[in-house]
């Protein structure tokens, strides 16, 4: 609906360690990041194992630094 130049950017990055790619950090930018981060904050606090349950992708155009768990999680998106 909006021309590209009007769209606020969205960017997501997961910081993972080890072969199991445990999430130890999450950096996100974009609309709704405050609310998203509150959920992710719980996940990281719990050691990252829980993160896949809380992944919400706000917009299909977002840049995701992927991880298998994140890919395997079905995105929430309005139709």
């Amino acid at each position, binding site marked *: *609906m*909006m021309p590209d*130049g*009007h769209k606020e*950017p969205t960017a997501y990055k997961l*910081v993972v360690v080890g072969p199991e790619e445990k999430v130890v950090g999450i950096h996100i930018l974009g609309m709704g990041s405050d609310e998203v*981060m*509150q959920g*992710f*904050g719980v996940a990281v606090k719990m050691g990252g194992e829980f993160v896949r349950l809380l992944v919400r992708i706000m917009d299909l155009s977002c840049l995701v630094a992927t991880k298998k768990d994140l890919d395997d999680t079905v995105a929430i998106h309005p139709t």
Partner: protein
Amino acid sequence: MWHAADTSERLRAAADYGFASATSATPTNKPTFDWANFKLKRDAYIKKLNGIYDSNWSREGIEHIHGYARLTGPKSVEVTGADGSKKEIEADQICIAVGGYPITPSEEKIPGASLGITSDGFFDLDHLPKRVAVVGAGYIAVELAGILNTLGSETHLLIRHDKFLRTFDPLLGDTLADWMGQTGLNVHKQSHIQKVEGKSGGPLTLHLADGKTLEVDTLIWAIGRRASTEDIGLDKAGVNINEKGDIIVDEYQQTNVPSITAIGDVQGKALLTPVAIAAGRRLSNRLFGPPEFKHEKLSYENIPTVVFS
């Protein structure tokens, strides 16, 4: 303030979604905003919140003494009221939660620096400055510059190096820098103010180290904060501070003096309001709660934080 700016952005997007009355939907075109009226409403709202705290305290039987407090010993405080009257209070437990303040360059270092304001002065502004310079690269600078730019000021963000939000992951600062350029925010890299000329409330001329000048109506320093540990009698009570001026506490918010604890910005760790509230709740549980809370403390690991850019 951020919600006001966010609303402005939603209004701007409205035209793209077919709302005909919103005609000018470009990132550099801002809907008009009644700052003066908004400020009145915002201040009234904060006053109402203060009143709610006040009535909660009286309901709990907490006496609120208004004045300037100085420690006179490990278990005593002297409070000087606005009328100059002094009152001595003794307590088994004293918690220091005086916070911090925004720093500004000295007049010796940058002549005219005192013509600028800080984040405190930002909240006192009764109108939207036509042209504004925000100095700093931290989250407070980025938030203030973002709000002012979105609400319609010609906004200049002056940073010392090439990037802002340097303590955050580069993804955030880099992505945001690209977008801010599109929104009309002017970021001046490698920028050092040498002198400020003008008069308070009037146009100011900023003289930069590279020889350029910048004319603005308001200058905001957002170059860091310092704990308010000067002149509160810490030496009288024997409370230790570090080289930055922060009170040194252990993981239980305990200072080196057994009867004195410290929470919030004054202890220099994780300077965020919700952190201070969470630490304070756990501290009061530990000190005054039932036995199951006697080891309660706030974990400072992995605290999430958000920049409202």
